């Protein structure tokens, strides 16, 4: 069992995923063993991959009766997953709040859109450029990470506002409130994605392939040296420092990576929407991303998927309600009026009753035999 890094290597942390206790490599040949080990480590990826691959086959059939265009919505879930998993690295793992990630999402969207519109880049070059620009911008504003806790949250909220104002006011570049129109659809060299009869399905696959790769990247990352450093500095910055972790650098890395992923999501978003304006990238989006992280589960890669799914589908379900119920009270009609009530309640109730979110709560239940719920009114022995 010495470390050839394959079969013998057991997995220290599953990113919050419950894992079977059966850990006996047995007497298989080494290649079979490594295959088994890959399946064991990545069974959730395989499961999700299979589900997503088969999803469009039946989704179209039930979309109509359901009143929700499932494939279309799932594209958005994929995009938000990319941004949320990055934000979860920052908030859930490294413990640094950002209430301004819509800025990076927006900068990504604008970068790719502008490069395609004004410099005639193809989208498959525009999107990597969006990632790069968001990352550089993230690095530029990284000094705010010197702030802690509430101060960091307020400062990032402020950053989001500053970026928003600039996106709106630099009309010569961004078109201001009118936004940018006719952003080219996605295509790869030799492969048109965002065109043709099946464009939704093709975009869906494109987005989810990228999302799964991002998830895989983060899944590996959090179980590595860097991931442990983030978790450690979250739990005790002083102890992590004294153990030799360069705390400020680790924070910056997490921040830049999360900014880059938000930029990636934003870049893709611009091309599938075809139209962007600054009002898509306000504090509302920042809070939505945070809600995804919190609801899905901090400190969990899968939480990002669950959170993005739940938060993206809620409005669609509510919009479809009249179709299901025939008639709804009139105040339920205009969803945008009370979506904040739902988000707000979700955030507050999650914090009070299930502070670790869905996936992480469930994982802990399996791993440490702990209830996923907390009772906030329980008296503790020591105040």
């Amino acid at each position, binding site marked *: 069992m010495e470390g050839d890094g394959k079969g013998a290597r057991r997995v220290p942390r599953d990113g919050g995923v419950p894992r079977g206790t059966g850990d006996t490599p047995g007497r298989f040949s080494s290649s079979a063993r490594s295959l088994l080990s890959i399946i064991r480590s990545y069974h959730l990826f395989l499961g999700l991959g299979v589900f997503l691959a088969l999803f469009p086959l039946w989704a179209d059939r039930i979309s109509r009766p359901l009143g929700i265009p499932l494939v279309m919505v799932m594209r958005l879930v994929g995009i938000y997953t990319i941004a949320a998993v990055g934000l979860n690295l920052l*908030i859930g793992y490294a*413990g640094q*709040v950002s*209430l301004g990630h819509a800025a990076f999402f927006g900068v990504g969207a604008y970068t790719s859109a502008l490069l395609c519109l004004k410099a005639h880049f193809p989208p498959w070059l525009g999107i990597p450029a969006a990632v790069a620009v968001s990352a550089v911008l993230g690095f530029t504003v990284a*000094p*705010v990470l*010197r*702030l*802690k*806790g*509430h*101060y960091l*949250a*307020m*400062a990032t*909220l*402020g*950053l989001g*506002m*500053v970026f*928003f*104002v*600039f996106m*709106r*006011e630099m009309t010569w570049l961004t078109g201001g409130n009118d936004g940018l129109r006719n952003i080219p659809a996605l295509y790869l060299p030799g492969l048109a994605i965002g065109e043709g009869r099946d464009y939704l399905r093709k975009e869906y696959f494109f987005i989810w392939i990228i999302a799964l790769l991002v998830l895989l990247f983060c899944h590996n990352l959090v179980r590595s040296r860097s991931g442990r450093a983030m978790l450690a500095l979250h739990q005790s*910055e*002083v102890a992590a420092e004294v153990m030799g972790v360069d705390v400020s650098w680790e924070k910056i890395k997490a921040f830049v990576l999360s900014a880059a992923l938000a930029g990636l999501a934003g870049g893709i978003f611009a091309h599938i929407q075809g139209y962007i304006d600054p009002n898509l990238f306000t*504090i509302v989006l920042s*809070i939505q991303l*945070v*809600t995804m992280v*919190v609801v899905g589960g*901090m400190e969990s890669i899968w939480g990002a998927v669950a959170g993005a799914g739940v938060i993206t589908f809620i409005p669609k379900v509510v919009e479809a309600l009249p179709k299901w119920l025939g008639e709804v009270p009139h*105040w339920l009609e205009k969803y945008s*009026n*009370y*979506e*904040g*009530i739902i*988000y*707000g*309640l*979700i*955030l*507050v109730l999650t*914090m*009070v009753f299930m*502070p670790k979110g869905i996936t992480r709560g469930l994982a802990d239940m399996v791993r440490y035999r702990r209830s996923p719920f907390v009772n*906030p*009114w329980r008296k*503790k022995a020591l*105040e």
Partner: protein
Amino acid sequence: MLDFLRNFPQYLANGMANGCLYILVAMGFNIIYNSTGIINFAQGEFSMFGGLFTYALAVSAGLPIPLAALLAVLATGAVGGAMERLMIHPLRRAGVLTAIIATVGASIFFKSLGRVFWPSEAYKVPEFTPGTFRLPGATVSKQFLWVTGLTVVCVALVYLFFSRTRAGKAMRACSVNRQAATLVGINVSRMSLYSFVLAAALGGAAGLINAPFASYGMGLEIGIKGFTASVVGGLGNTFGAVVGGLVLGLLEELIPGFLNVVLGVSTGYKGAVSAIILIAVLLFRPQGLLGRGIAEKV
């Protein structure tokens, strides 16, 4: 440059008026921070409630304005109290991250609640005494006098509360050392409740002097500006908020005014000024202009 100087008195007057608003919001931030260690991200929404309640009572229900204003402030205080009991109290042992996200959630919730009941973009809250008067170089609404007066009264009342009443003194003790306060028999949990009620009432008062307009969307901006004011004055320094609010109010008029008139920059950037000031102060002078800064403990 000359135009800028000519407008100067007007900037001062506008800045003072906004400054009064920020003072009240900033004091709310400080009071809650002192007794609970929490930055309440829903503080701006208290002002939204103050404004919308006043509208509802004065315009929709037709009450006389002073009565409507008073009731609106009290009702906002009650909202703050309810928030404390239902959310902050159960979370009193939770970490900073949890507190941040929960109060952000409350802010979204309040804003949306406002939107459901008062869905228009803006409601005109009646001025106490309509009309304007002229000073050399500036036109000032009569409301300005009310705003200043109300702010002075509020600050004075808060001062008396903290220096003369038992509850006020107990809350000051909490801000110095919560644990020690518990040991000498102060009910810290009740002080937390009081602080939310007081902060909400102050926020409500700020909302009603924000006339002529109130809307569901005003909370975020007021919140972040009020917080900026409290940081400029030194977070936790309740009366530093007075300085912070005035400084921010003036800068927020003078900087965009200067940029616009002298350099021709669009006034649309005004919205970014307070956020930039906030970030700059947090990074370079976290203790605020007056000191007693609190760089968060290790």
